[in-house]
């Protein structure tokens, strides 16, 4: 036990002497978590202060285009620009600006849209009304004038992501449907006379409501912080792979590994010293990031991280995730021959594990094959365990399978390292 303590002390000393390394270990994860949450927050928040500037070319100058402008303005997502330098913008200008990447989107409202829509709806309504009154009057052929369909054109920056385009198209589609519906209602109202207005209730009959889980009589509405802090904390924890593998590779290149192998100290003690030290680092990183989520985020306009009594369980998940990360680092350090091998491989593999683990894109949104692969990623186990605790309010029993997998991953990684080390001695 004394040798283990001394090994831990030595590892702590080595870390202490590497000031740059320490800064990277603690400051970079904080920068990461703040940056990512700020970005994610402004992307997905509904009531956001960040408005996307878009160009709107109003060739209609009628009731419909006014409604579109009004709705877009009220959506809080867009800043609608219709003129530049006191002059109304035209389609050619808008197209050029958007395709050059100066704006994400341009909406071109066609000429006589309001007039055309009104005429088309009125003709349809008149035709229906004549049909209804056929029994009482002499049939007259309705004089339906074929109105060519109008087209609202959208120009997107070629660099716009599909998710953004889909969201915008869906919003505009919904807006146009509402305007059409309203116009139809108005046409019927006019045809039937003012006394029938009460018959047309324009309020939506079908609506939807998100039912959120309740805990302690309090609604649990997850915000971007609740999603981002666990995900990116896990990502940062796994980055321990890089300094740990470098530490092991350095021992080989310095020759201290030779000395340790000829000392009466087991490889388990040597690995144990590293495991405990780097696990402490992981936990410190974790607590630091929790503290940032709880106390710094509100000060920079982000939603605070609310643990709601899950602190202990979150710590358990962090501990087991840290173990898995340390195990991976030990294996990488044991197998790699140089720092040039271990550092880039470690960093890249952590990014890949994060990607397949669902840190960037939710697993349910991945292709089927990737969803299966995600299930064998330790980062996915850690992430799911974090979400189970923080968002789904699982108890320790509920997350035991994930904790077991993370522990098993650590044990396998360590066992393979010891086996590989033994095998290498028989060169």
């Amino acid at each position, binding site marked *: 036990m004394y040798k283990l303590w001394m090994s831990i002390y030595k590892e702590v000393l080595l870390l202490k002497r590497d000031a740059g390394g320490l800064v990277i270990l603690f400051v970079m994860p904080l920068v990461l978590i703040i940056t990512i949450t700020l970005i994610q927050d402004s992307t997905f928040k509904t009531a956001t202060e960040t408005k996307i500037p878009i160009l709107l070319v109003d060739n209609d100058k009628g009731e419909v285009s006014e409604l579109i402008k009004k709705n877009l303005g009220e959506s809080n997502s867009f800043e609608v620009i219709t003129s530049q330098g006191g002059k109304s913008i035209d389609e050619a200008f808008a197209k050029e600006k958007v395709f050059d990447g100066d704006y994400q989107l341009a909406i071109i409202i066609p000429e006589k849209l309001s007039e055309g829509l009104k005429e088309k709806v009125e003709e349809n309504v008149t035709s229906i009304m004549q049909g209804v009154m056929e029994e009482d009057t002499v049939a007259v052929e309705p004089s339906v004038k074929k109105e060519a369909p109008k087209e609202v054109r959208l120009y997107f920056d070629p660099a716009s992501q599909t998710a953004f385009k889909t969201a915008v198209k869906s919003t505009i589609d919904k807006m146009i449907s509402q305007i059409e519906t309203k116009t139809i209602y108005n046409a019927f109202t006019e045809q039937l006379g003012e006394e029938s207005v009460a018959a047309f209730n324009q309020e939506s009959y079908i609506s939807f409501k998100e039912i959120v889980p309740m805990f302690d009589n309090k609604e649990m509405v997850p915000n971007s912080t609740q999603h981002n802090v666990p995900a990116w904390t896990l990502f940062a924890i796994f980055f321990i792979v890089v300094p740990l593998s470098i530490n092991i590779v350095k021992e080989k290149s*310095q020759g201290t590994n030779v*000395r340790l192998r000829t000392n009466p100290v087991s490889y388990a003690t040597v690995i144990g010293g590293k495991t405990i030290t780097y696990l402490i680092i992981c936990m410190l990183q974790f607590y630091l990031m929790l503290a940032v989520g709880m106390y710094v985020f509100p000060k920079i306009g982000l939603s605070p991280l609310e643990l709601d009594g899950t602190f202990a369980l979150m710590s358990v998940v962090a501990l087991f995730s840290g173990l898995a990360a340390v195990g991976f680092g030990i294996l990488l350090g044991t197998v790699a021959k140089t720092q040039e091998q271990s550092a880039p491989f470690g960093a890249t593999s952590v990014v890949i594990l994060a990607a397949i683990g669902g840190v960037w894109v939710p697993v349910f949104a991945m292709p089927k094959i990737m969803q299966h692969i995600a299930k064998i990623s330790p980062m996915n186990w850690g992430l799911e365990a974090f979400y189970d605790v923080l968002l789904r309010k699982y108890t320790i029993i509920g997350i035991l399978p994930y904790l077991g997998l993370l522990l098993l991953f650590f044990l396998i990684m360590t066992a393979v390292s010891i086996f590989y080390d033994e095998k290498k*001695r028989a060169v």
Partner: protein
Amino acid sequence: MTDPIIEIQSLSKKYKNADVYSVNNLSLQINKGEIFGLLGPNGAGKTTLISMLCGLIKPTSGDFTINGYKYSNDAHAIKKIMGVVPQEYALYPTLTARENLMYFGNMYGLKGKALKQKINDSLDYLGLLKFADKKIDTFSGGMKRRINLLAGQLHEPSVLFLDEPTVGVDVHSKAVIIEYLKQVNQSGTTIIYTSHHLAEAQDLCSHIAIIDNGEIMIKGTPQEIIELTHNAHTLEDVFLSLTGKALRDHV
């Protein structure tokens, strides 16, 4: 009356993908209290032999015992009575000399005041006490060699393996190291040492084996092997006579 501490029987080592054996059916006995020099040209098999004796690599065939222990059964017992001074500076560059020595002393089970005293005395003897709290990466090559030696010897092992302990050091450092090794030997440690410095080996070693192509060419006291070799007056004459003058560069 001889009292063997190392007994090697038909030891061989062939590296994976190698065409020839690095150590080939080698048998040797080293007695307690000896300073045994393993000499040979580059690639002769010296480091491979020492690495096997230190448990760093496994033999292809053959066997050996250290103080009656075998690695297969008593690896821990062997490691406790053995000290190793590798050819590289096997030290943590960002730790001080004292921190390095404390750590490696701890790994041998030493602790407390006794270890601190031993470190101070040894550093003093090797002229490094005033640099005890300086980081290793600020040391010269000669200073690092002396700390490297101390790190393998702090626990006063029964057998001390040294792989070229004076390579790349100046005359003064070399003299201090050789003097220290003589003192260590007098206090009861058997020393097995490899070197390319034949004059140094002739001065230091009580017994010598010249090894080439993984086999022992000759062994005995320096005087004996000089006398056994025709027209030889020094170890260098013996060495060149047995191993030839051709360069041994290889990859």
